[in-house]
């Protein structure tokens, strides 16, 4: 855990304390970035960028949120920025609906999604984030709310929708009978 004394020392300019904080945040931030970005290299890039932002902004961190959730918000925003810059996929609502129809067709065609991690990455970004924070970071609703900067009920909505969508896909795959939707061990 990062105690407030360590944070205060870092805010006061003690570099050793700052490096200790970055070290403690590194792995949790990497884990979120890994699941959001989907590969090791992008996750490392996102982690590096997020830690830089933590360093630059720690002096103005006021402690309204836990430092872990505050840093999680930074890394999720960094990941979204990386997607945006690459013009990959951060979809407007109407696009999301269209994509979902395509997703349905893909399932109908019997396309295989053999990996739970891949299935998560097919969810809209807020749902992905809520699922990752809940299960990989083991956050409760309040912590997810802080990390995403969203109201509690909105967070629940994203989490519930994400789980429901995964359940739907799981059920469809099982009905297909051609393959099982199991996580790689």
């Amino acid at each position, binding site marked *: 855990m990062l105690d407030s004394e360590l944070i205060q020392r870092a805010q006061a300019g003690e570099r050793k304390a700052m490096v200790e904080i970055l070290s403690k945040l590194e792995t949790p931030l990497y884990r979120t970035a890994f699941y959001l970005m989907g590969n090791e290299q992008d*996750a490392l890039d996102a982690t590096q960028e997020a830690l830089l932002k933590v360093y630059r902004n720690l002096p103005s*961190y006021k402690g309204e949120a836990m430092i872990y959730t505050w840093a999680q918000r930074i890394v999720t*925003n960094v990941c979204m920025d990386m997607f945006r810059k690459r013009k990959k996929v951060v*979809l407007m609502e109407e696009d999301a609906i269209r994509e979902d129809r395509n997703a349905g067709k893909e399932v109908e065609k019997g396309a295989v999604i053999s990996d739970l991690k891949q299935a998560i990455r097919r969810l809209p970004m807020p749902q992905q984030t809520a699922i990752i924070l809940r299960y990989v970071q083991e956050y409760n609703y309040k912590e997810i709310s802080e990390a995403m900067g969203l109201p509690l009920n909105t967070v629940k909505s994203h989490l*519930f929708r994400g789980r429901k969508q995964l359940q739907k896909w799981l059920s469809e795959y099982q009905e297909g009978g051609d393959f099982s939707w199991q996580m790689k061990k």
Partner: protein
Amino acid sequence: MADEKIMEWSQRNLDNDLSQLEKSMLEKHLQESTEDRQNADELMEVSRQLSLLPRTDPPHSVIPQVLDQIEREETSRSKTVSSPSRTRWLSVGRAVAAAVIVSFAGLFALMKFQSSDLENGQKMGDTNEAGVYSQLEEKDANMEKANSVIWSPNQTYRAEWKERKLVVVRADGALQYERLFNSEQLQLQKIEWLTDQVVKVTLIHADRQVPEIITVDVVKKQEVQ
């Protein structure tokens, strides 16, 4: 119990968010309804699999690169002024970072690192589930569209262009600043934060070549030059 309530409680049950009474009521209902029991079981299986997701560790530490970048930035910022104390902490920092790397190396020697690169899959959209999900959504749902929301560098404010309005909201969701642009000809080109409290909005007018730039201090709630 209504279907929506069952669905919500089944979900909250997975997150240990039900009171003892609610849990008992849910259990009682699920014993009586095969369909709802099956749905709850399926959700539980999804949740069980999610809880088994591997806690992947980074293959190496990026802290040395972070410290190098900070050093480069600070050096370029103070080219003319040499500051020994500034570089001294970086040496300390690098020593600590080296210790972190050694720790990582030790860990990886003991553990079989699970490296599982994922394909860059395309995101699919959300479904419009009626009922409980819609009920849970709040007025600021639109703020979640990631590509229209820009956070301030210190993650305190988020700026969004919404129906000819620049809307700035604090992290807790409270409105900080709002400004309506009357012309329907204006379209957003870009939102960017110049500082932690100054946001720059670039708008394009349908009839003009030159973009209109508005810079606002959202704390003072006034336009700045």
